[in-house]
């Protein structure tokens, strides 16, 4: 009984973290938002997960924009592509 009440009011960590991961992909409903906030007030582990998740999102954006400046298409590959283009122009 107590467990059932807990479940409707409070999210488990497993559900809370799921909402944290998913909020980058879709908007959370009002009820989801409220329950997540409530959970984060009382759970330091999920609070840490929330911060880390936001940080990972930022880092991934950074990695996506990372130009890897020191990398070059290898010369042999360049030559063979160039060769094909010149032949087929």
């Amino acid at each position, binding site marked *: 009984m107590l467990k059932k009440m807990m479940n409707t009011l409070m999210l488990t*960590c497993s559900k809370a973290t799921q909402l944290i991961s998913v909020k980058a992909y879709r908007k959370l409903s009002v009820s989801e938002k409220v329950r997540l906030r409530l959970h984060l007030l009382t759970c330091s582990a999920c609070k840490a997960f929330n911060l880390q998740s936001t940080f*990972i999102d930022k880092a991934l954006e*950074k990695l996506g924009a990372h130009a890897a400046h020191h990398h070059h298409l290898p010369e042999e*590959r360049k030559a063979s*592509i160039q060769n094909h*283009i010149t032949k087929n122009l």
Partner: protein
Amino acid sequence: MITINRRIFNMAENTQPAKHPCNPESWVENYGDSLYRYTLVRVNKPEEAEDLVQETFFAALKNKNSFRGDSSEKTWLFNILKNKIIDHYRKNKNKPLTASELSASETEEGDGFMERLFKNQGFMEGHWNADNRPGKWGQNLNDALENNEFLTILKACIKHLPQMASAVFRMKYFMEEDSRFICKELDITPSNLWVLAHRSKLQIRECLEKNWMDK
């Protein structure tokens, strides 16, 4: 009067969209490296990136008559490349990892992964297992974003995701595609997508904590 007319004439000419030229002969020299760098962070291996760049140039050459010059040659080539990369994710989504990838990866299929992280019975069911709770990561996280070693570790962590999860992750964060597009391309339901997104996040987080924070 004549000068005014000429000015108006010139203005009219300037508002015409300039047609961009198409010079396949200098594609490799002009765009080879930038296409390659773009691909390199989006796939697992340098050879895959090389192949995708080559396929892009060949496809562009074959279809060069469809280049209308409305956008620059570079934009056009990048669009072809992006489609090739998404195709590549789609083709690889169900490919099992090779033995060496598997031994390097922390991939756990099925419920094993979630059961390790969260209690699966008792009053505290669904709450973190004590050994796998997220730890504190300290204050200066933003410094890490400028740190090449950190970015290398992050890239390795993504590499070790199961194929389908990494396809989702890369389409979301590197190709900036929306959920509907990702579901359509990878032929999965939205709830599949949420599960994959969540497991990937948990796995990346844990991988970073193990390999970067503990340093």
